[in-house]
Structures are given as C-alpha cells and as structure tokens.
C-alpha cells in the first residue's frame, strides 16, 4: 500500500513537472506582455512584471487591426474545421462501412497524398483558386483546408471499432445510410469528432503562408500575419506588443480546447474497453 502511494506521488510529481515545463513558456509570455520594455531587457532573471500595465496590448491593437484579423481567422478556422469534420466523417463512413470494388486501392491512393509536401502544390493550388476568382475571399482561404486525409484516416479507424451488428440491425429496421450516419454513428463519435475539430482548428488558426498568398487586401489578413506585422527585421523586435498579441491570439484556441476537452478525455476511455 505504502509502495503504491509513493509510486503515485512520484508519478504525479513527474506529470506535474512535465506540465509545468510545457506551460512555462506560455506563462512567461503572458508575464512579458504586462512588462515595460526596460523590464523585459534586463540582464538578470525577471519573471514577473513590477506592475501590471496594458500598454503593450494597446500598442499591439494600435499597430495592427488585430480584432479584424481575429474575426478573419475565426471564420477561416471555424468554417474549414466544420466542413473538414463533415467531409472526413462521410468519407471515412464509406471506407469503413461500404464494400465496393477498389475500396482499398482508393484508400491507399488517398493516404499516399500525405507524402506530397504542401509547398510542391502551392503554385498549382494558387492557380486553381485564382482561376476560379476566389482570391481575396474566405472560401479561397478555406479551400486548402477543407479536406484532410489524416482526418479521414482518424475517423475510419474509429468507425472500424464500431459494431457492424448495430449498422446491420438499423438497416433491417429500414434505416438508410445517411440517417444511420446522422442519427446513430455521428452522435456516438464525439471523441474523434472533437479531436479532429480541435486539431483542424488549431492548425488552420496557425496557418500563415496560404492565407497570405491567396489574399491581397489588408482587411483579409489573419492573426498570424498580424503578429508578424509587429515584428520588423530592420526595426528590431518589440517584445512587449508581440507577446501581448500572441496572448490575444492564443485565447480562442484555448477556449476551443477547454470546450472540447471533456470529449477527448471521454473518447480515450471509451476506446479502452471492448465488448
């Protein structure tokens, strides 16, 4: 018993240490965002601000249209993540539940696209989007993030653990494929849906290159571009406002994570017991 307690304390201390190490840079960034320039640039270790001041936040908002950029990023990340979940879910449904000729070949073909680096197809993708007249539009920005093979794979793997008997029983009861997907399969797939949505939202939220290439107007910029606009190669780095902008930019992704955290945890446990 005693041995178990010691083990548990050691394990939890280790987890706490790893957790603190992970979150430390973020906490330090938050602290820096409240510091004066002179406090940031000190030789000694200076972890906390002498006094909380909002100057850096005001400066970040003055130098860039961060609120507008956050709205753009929210539309981009939110919209593309919702569509991505729908597309990946439906595609995975066909791969997991249907039996058709060439299914495995098609699946392998899809998976093989993961080996093509995004940069290689950047110009071709841009050409397609420009020819369709989608530059400077939200749809043009989203277009590259609507389908992810990795997400199809994740959904498929999850669906493969789903009982085929339920699917067949629902069919006997006269339930069509789409109704089965919407009413039975999708509600029972919350963990994988949450995982895909969060990973999609965070990765799209953090995207820099594609939104920068496909838009030309300042009003269509995203938050990542906004943060870059505060940096200056010749003018040097203004750490305070950059940290303040980074903290502001971080908020939506943290909210999304908190909202879906329960589902992820639930999903992990749901997969642990079979039968």
């Amino acid at each position, binding site marked *: 018993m005693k041995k178990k307690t010691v083990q548990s304390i050691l394990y939890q201390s280790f987890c706490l240490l790893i957790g603190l190490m992970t979150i430390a840079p973020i906490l330090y960034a938050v602290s820096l965002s409240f510091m004066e320039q002179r406090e940031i640039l000190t030789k000694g270790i200076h972890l906390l601000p002498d006094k909380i001041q909002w100057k850096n936040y005001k400066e970040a908002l003055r130098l860039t249209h961060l609120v507008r950029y956050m709205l753009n990023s929210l539309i981009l990340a939110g919209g593309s993540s919702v569509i991505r979940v729908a597309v990946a879910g439906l595609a995975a449904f066909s791969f997991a539940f249907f039996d058709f000729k060439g299914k495995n070949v098609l699946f392998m073909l899809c998976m093989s696209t993961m080996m093509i680096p995004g940069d290689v197809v950047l110009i071709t993708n841009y050409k397609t989007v420009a020819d369709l007249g989608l530059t400077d539009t939200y749809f043009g920005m989203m277009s590259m993030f609507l389908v992810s093979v990795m997400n199809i794979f994740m959904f498929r793997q999850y669906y493969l653990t789903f009982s085929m008997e339920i699917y067949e029983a629902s069919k006997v009861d006269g339930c069509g494929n789409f109704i089965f997907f919407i009413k039975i399969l999708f509600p029972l797939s919350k963990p994988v849906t949450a995982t895909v949505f969060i990973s999609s939202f965070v990765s799209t939220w953090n995207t820099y290159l594609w939104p*920068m290439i496909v838009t030309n107007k300042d009003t269509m910029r995203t938050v990542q571009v906004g943060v870059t606009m505060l940096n200056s190669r010749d*003018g040097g780095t203004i750490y305070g406002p950059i940290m303040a902008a980074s903290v502001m930019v971080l908020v939506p992704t943290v909210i999304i994570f908190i909202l879906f955290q329960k589902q992820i945890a639930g999903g992990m446990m749901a997969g642990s017991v079979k039968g």
Partner: protein
Amino acid sequence: MKKTLSFVMAAGLILSLGACGQGASTKTKAPTAAVPEPTTAAQTTGTPEETKRISDKDVEVSFWHHMEGTNASALETAVNHFNETTGKEYGIVVTPSFQGSNTAEKLNTLAQAGDWKNFPDVCQVASAGIPAISGYDLFVAPEDMYAKGEDILLPRESIIANNARTFTYKDKLCAIPFSNSTILLYYNKELFKAAGLDPENPPKTIAEMADAITKLTAKDGNEVTTYGLNVQVKRYQLVNWVGGEGDFNFIGDNEGGRAGLMSKVTFGEDGSLMTYLNEWEKVIATGGYKPVEDNINEEFAMQLSAMAIMSSARIAKLNDLIGDSFEWGTAPFPKVNAEDKGGTAVGGSGIVMFDKGNADELRASWIFQQYLGGEDAQYDFCTASGYIPMNKDLYEEERMKTYLSENTAMVAAVDQLMASNPNVQEPFDIVTGDINSIIDEEMLAFAQGTSDKQTTHDNIVNKCNEKLEAYVKVNAK
C-alpha cells in the same frame, strides 16, 4: 448506391484530370502592356491646377509593401499624406497592403501561376528581386518613364547615384529607391572609455577592430560577460567587406549581375575573399567575438556587446532601446585594409510598378512612385523609420540639416553612403537565399574553429559557383 458512388467518383476524377490538363496548357504570358496615351493636361510644368486630375473618377492604385512594425506606420503615414495632397490634386487614391516580408516571392508566385490580374500597380521590393521582376511583361522601368518625359515630379538627377545604381539592371533604372540603408559599426562609448580606448576614434579597419575587441572583452573566469564584437557574417556583411576592397569589387561576373546574368563569383579568383579572411582571422583569434546574432540590438543595448555591426536602419530602434542608459555612437564600416576606397553598398528596397493595361492607372502609379522618392515623403518616412533619404535635394534643405544635427548617429551613415563608390553594391546573384546560407554556414564554421581558412575560402567559392551554375544552366536563354 454503388453505381451512384462510382459515378460521382468517376466524375470527380475526370474533373480533376481536366483541371490538371488545363493547368499544364495555360500560357504563363502576361497580357500585353498598354502603351500609355500621352496626356499633356497633367504635365507638371505650367499646368493649371484644375487640369491635373487624371480622370473624372478617382484612379485607384494598389500598393504592396513589406514594412512591419513602426516602419509600416511610417509608410502608411506617407501614403496617407500622398492621398491628402498630391493624390487629391491628380485624383489618385492609393491603398497600401502588407504582403509578408518578401514581396518579390509573392510576385513570383503570381507570375508562375500566370495570375497577372491580381498583380499590384505599385510594389516595394528588395533590390535582390529586381532581375526577376524586370523580366515580367507587365513591368515598367522608371528609366523608360523618364525617357518619355511625362509627369516628372522627381527629377532623375535627384536620386543619389549610389542608390540609383542599386536598382539598375542592364543599364536601366528599374525601381525608385525608397527605404535605403548602409552597414555601420555601432559602438559603446562608455565601454570604450573604460577599456582605455578613444571613443571619438573608433576602429577604421578590421585589424584595428581586432585590437579593440581584445581590450573591450570582459570575462568572468572563462565565461565572456561582455563581447568585444557581435556580428554574424552572412552574405550582406561579406559582400560589403569584399565589395569595398581596393576601388571597388563586383563580387561576381557581369558587374555582379548588373550587366547580365551572374554565372560565377569572382572573389575567389581575384583573391579578395582570401584578403578578407586573412584579416577576419585576427578578429576570431581575439576570443571576444560573438559570431552568432541572437538579439543583436537588445544585446548591444544591454551592454552585452561593446561593438556590433548592423544596418543603419537600426539606429532608430537603438535610440529607443538605449535611451539615456549610456553613450553610444556609429562609425563607418571598418575596412579590410586601410587603403581601401570602395566604401559600402546601399541596402534596402525600392518601388517598382506594373502596367496592367489601364493608361490612367499607369500614370497614377508613376506619379505615386515618384512621390515616394520626393523630398517630403523621404523626409517624413526616413526621420520616422531611420532609413537614409535617397533624394539628393533633401540634404540641401534646412529641415534635413537640423535633423542630422540632432541625430548624430545618422551622420556616419549618410557620409559613408555619399562617399562610397556606386559600383560597390550587393550583387544580383539570383540565388540570394542559397548564397546567404552558404556564407553563413561557412563563416560560422570558420569562427567556431571547425573549418580552417583555406577550406572556408574554397567552400564558399565552390558552393556559390555550384548554385549559380545550376541556375544558369536551367534559366539562361
């Protein structure tokens, strides 16, 4: 269900194949540029105010730039000022937009995709992008506009020769210089005094700098607490040192790429690279030289380095960082040898314009392009950002004289730029990124003692030539 699914998939595949085929066969030629119709009404000389408007409707000009932070604010102020003054007179409205730190790369993406309609009217580009940009069908060189002689607001002679040369390719001025700088030595006067050095007499050569580093370096046991010098030698620094040797040095063939495609570096065969490395070895031997730039501005401001080599565009930032903490100054870039007369290259960006087939827009773009090089825009932008004005006439004005008398750190930059040979320039080496990486990597290995002088020399020369050769092989017509 199976049949429907097969049909949808087949249709999808056919569509995607069709899209690929279309992509491959689409010509990447730009639409033919419209020849601007000569309009006498808007000529500057003797034109009545009311006839200056280009059109009944305001002409909109899109302007792409790569300025960030406080420099972006300074640029936007200049654009707003144009819209309120000259723009209003001519009926021009300019909309600036930030396009990332490398506008030339974005233009290149659009050009490769053949998306000419989304090109801007006016764009700020770094000098390295000029050879590629001047090849676009839409490109209009200021040299040609000067030759036409219409709507001249900025006389060609007002542009300082060195700055003009920076943006000259195949004898044509391809951009109006805008945000220009030069490389300088920054030094901490108080640390100079403490080390027994004369703060009014900073090192003039690399050898003198090496002596100063030895005296300025402070150690706590084996750990350096204050470095004598901080600079990471990359392409920018190296071409300034080598370029300034003797009267001047082109670095590469075809006048360093300005008379034609640069196919090889010449600093190996003429011995100038080895001359530089012989001197630089003295700096490395001091043990007080920091060869990596982490936060060079901030480290200098925190007195972690006594000297630093940086662009003059950092003066404003250092003023802001240092404030009244200690006394510091700028000095000319230390020469390789005392007898060198070349000076330094002009760094920074210029303004190019494109003809998208609308004569009114082209005229408006030309007027705006010149405005950015005019006295007012240069004064406002440069004093707010720390760049060196490229307009010769501005230096005759009282406001500029006052500014320089109040900002002594800028004086060294201006004097050095004016005294330099215009042939000292960063080369148009096309594969700039690759060459930068090669020099950075090799010079770092040399500084850290993992590569000897001869190997460093040979690697820089051979690797740069390999990259240039590969480019020429694919692209030379």
